[in-house]
């Protein structure tokens, strides 16, 4: 156990120095581009916001099933299949009645693998809708995979919109990730106050233009909507123009009446639609509706044919800016709810870094002193090992640009405390071996050999705990599992290569000394 080949010695030294270099590069700025790596500080250390958003998919599902119902109606009419009482039940099932002798026909239409109206997904062995026919009652039930498809496409769209909105606000390096099938994680490092982003993400930003009707009662084809101030208006359900046709929006000062407005430009289709609608309806009121609330309902003074216009309303410059931002970034496919928020201010983050580092330094010194007192020279070897262990640990975290959190720092300190265990096991074993073995070299050798399985066993148990925590833990706690787990690996390396190498050199040079340990 004490023999090292030259190649091994060189590799150990190179490996150790390389990682030590990475570790130190966090504290000193070396001037080279190749090794430019840094540990990322977690949100709890650098300050920032963690937001978990959940997509409320119910309206999307309802919408999709409604669209499907319309498609099915058309399709069956084309195929000359008689049906009646077609309706949606439970928001995601379509029911209708047929003539009993059409059953096989229906079966052919909906359950064929090449079905045009009810697509089949061979990979998942399922149709979009599951068909059941009970004499003349037909039911199409949205299949699990059909639901997954709807969810993943709305997640796909939502994440894009979220990204655009966050980018528009201009925070540094936001992290926007999918979580599960209907969640989006937004990490905003360095953001002290997430209130603005939260209010931006909380809006679906569904913009529509609809005409205000002259009726005072709600009737077929109209609906009652509210202004911001709570007054009501009856508007037509027909959408003149929607936010999809917008290509740009900006806040602007209207110089005529000193009001803040949001000006917008339309795409070609939008321009045409808008020109036609405004030409035919001069004098009517056009309601501008955002997320089912009327922002304003100006009267059309003249046809708007240029493809640009402006939205008036009770805006401050800030709210006009936000409104323009929402319109530019587009509408979310479904409302988003913030289901988890964790925000740490930068001053608290700095405090945490300071107290984390202080406790690391103090804990480290205490352990080093203890080992020195206990084992004298071999304590020194253990301590040198411990220092390199720390370098290796931080070096690996840097190499993989891992995220360091406050519990992560605690994991490093804990590693410092537990890392000496392996050396202690070895030294205690060597002491025992020396009672029966006169030859110092042999005693050291068998001390290393006999303690090996124990050390492996003992470390693997902690490693298991760290891995489970890594898989199931979230946020800062995950950072703890990373440092704890990596710490075990670097401990084993530093004990079996660095400490053993130093011990081997020392012992072989002093093998004739009376008492070595």
């Amino acid at each position, binding site marked *: 156990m004490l023999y090292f080949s030259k190649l091994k010695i060189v590799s150990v030294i190179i490996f150790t120095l390389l990682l030590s270099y990475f570790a130190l590069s966090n504290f000193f700025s070396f001037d080279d581009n190749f090794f430019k790596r840094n540990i990322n500080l977690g949100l*709890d250390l650098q300050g920032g916001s963690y937001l978990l958003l959940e997509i409320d998919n119910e309206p999307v599902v309802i919408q999709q099933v409604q669209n499907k119902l319309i498609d099915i109606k058309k399709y069956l009419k084309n195929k000359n299949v008689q049906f009646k009482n077609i309706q949606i039940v439970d928001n995601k099932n379509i029911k209708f009645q047929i003539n009993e002798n059409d059953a096989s026909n229906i079966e052919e239409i909906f359950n064929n693998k090449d079905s045009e109206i009810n697509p089949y997904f061979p990979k998942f062995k399922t149709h979009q809708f599951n068909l059941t026919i009970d004499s003349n009652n037909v039911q199409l039930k949205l299949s699990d995979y059909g639901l997954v498809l709807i969810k993943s496409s709305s997640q796909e769209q939502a994440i894009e919109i979220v990204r655009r909105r966050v980018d528009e606000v201009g925070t540094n390096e936001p992290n926007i990730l999918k979580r599960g099938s209907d969640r989006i994680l937004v990490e905003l490092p360095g953001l002290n106050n997430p*209130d603005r982003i*939260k*209010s931006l993400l*909380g809006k679906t930003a569904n913009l529509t233009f609809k005409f205000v009707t002259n009726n005072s009662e709600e009737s077929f084809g109209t609906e009652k909507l509210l202004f911001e101030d709570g007054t009501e208006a009856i508007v037509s359900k027909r959408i003149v123009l929607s936010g999809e046709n917008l290509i740009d929006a900006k806040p602007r000062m209207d110089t005529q009446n000193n009001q803040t407005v949001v000006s917008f430009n339309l795409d070609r289709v939008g321009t045409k639609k808008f020109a036609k609608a405004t030409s035919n309806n001069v004098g009517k009121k056009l309601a501008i509706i955002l997320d089912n609330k009327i922002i304003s309902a100006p009267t059309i003074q003249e046809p708007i044919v240029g493809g640009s216009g402006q939205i008036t309303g009770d805006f401050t410059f800030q709210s006009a800016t936000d409104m323009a931002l929402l319109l530019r970034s587009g509408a979310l496919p479904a409302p988003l*709810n*913030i*289901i*988890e*928020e*964790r*925000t*740490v*201010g930068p001053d*608290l983050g700095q*405090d*945490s870094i300071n*107290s*984390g580092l*202080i*406790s690391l330094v*103090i*804990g480290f010194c*205490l*352990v080093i002193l*203890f*080992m020195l007192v*206990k084992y004298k020279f071999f304590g020194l070897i253990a301590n040198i090992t411990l220092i390199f262990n720390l370098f290796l640990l931080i070096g690996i975290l840097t190499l993989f640009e891992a995220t360091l959190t*406050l*519990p992560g*720092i*605690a994991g490093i*300190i*804990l590693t*410092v*405390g*537990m890392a000496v*265990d392996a050396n*202690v096991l070895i030294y*205690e074993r060597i002491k025992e071996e020396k009672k029966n073995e006169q030859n110092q070299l042999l005693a050291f050798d068998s001390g290393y050999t006999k303690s090996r399985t*124990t050390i492996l*066993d*003992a470390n*693997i*148990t*902690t*490693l*298991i*705990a*760290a891995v*489970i*925590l890594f898989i*199931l*833990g*979230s*946020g*800062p*706690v995950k950072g*703890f*599992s990373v440092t704890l787990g990596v710490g075990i690996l670097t401990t084993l390396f530093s004990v079996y290569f660095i400490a053993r190498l130093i011990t081997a050199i020392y012992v072989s040079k002093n093998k004739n000394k009376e008492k070595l340990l």
Partner: protein
Amino acid sequence: MEKKNIPFNLFYKQFNFVSLLLIALSLVFLVFKGLNYGVDFKGGTLIELRTTDKTISISDLRKSFTKMELGDVSVKNFGNENDFIIKFEKKEQLEENFIVNLKNELKKDIGDSFNFRRVESVGPKVSSELLKSGILAIALSLGAMLIYIWIRFEWQFSLGAIAAIFHDVVITLGFFSVLNLEINLSIVAAVLTIVGYSMNDTVVIFDRVRENLKKYSDIKIFDLTNISINETLSRTIITSATTLLALLSIFIFGGEILKGFSFAMILGVIIGTYSSIYIANPILVMLNVTQKTIIKEDTD
């Protein structure tokens, strides 16, 4: 450390009784008093607030927050007299402007001289998921340890080790229940680490027991465990000492946020070290482990 011969084994019965009592007490507390779950597991909102105006008292804050109809509000000092932790359980969905409104309300009452250093809001759905995954993590780690030690040792040993870990987890949580300390995500991390640490400690002694079983064919397990405990005692003490030194440093200097975590760990390391000696080993004796137990295994 010179070779010791402390008769640990003479007190197996007494300490087993103490342990059983502590476990029973802990279970009673856990069942009837329960744990003080933080916002991670219960849902709700936590705000760490710092004031720059020394005249703002804890009761001013309490009054102001109670007015806002947030459900159960608790206001506590956090570390020093200018830092406060405010916790409340708001049942409904979090609105996006909730925190803004809260700040505005608070400004009306106590003025401008405060800031929110930390805000944690966890919805009911997320908190129940976190609780589930926390319990799953602890259960899984126990299971994984059981499997590992089963592969490495004989079943008697794995029973002893698992009993020791179970003992540590229950009593640590019992302490948290008695002292009404908050259980949050970092406590789950602490419990898992305790599981790892206690296992580590037990494995070192067990390894020695197994070695000694091969070495001394004529010594009964009752004395053999004692020899093994003594032989590994100096290592046990040194490792516990260095680990505790590191943990004490976190507890004292690591700031308020790590207090609960480091306290749980300190408790766990002490209990874990004790259980490796007084739970794991007596079980080997009870199960009457003999030289045959491991020889059979070796010839398999």
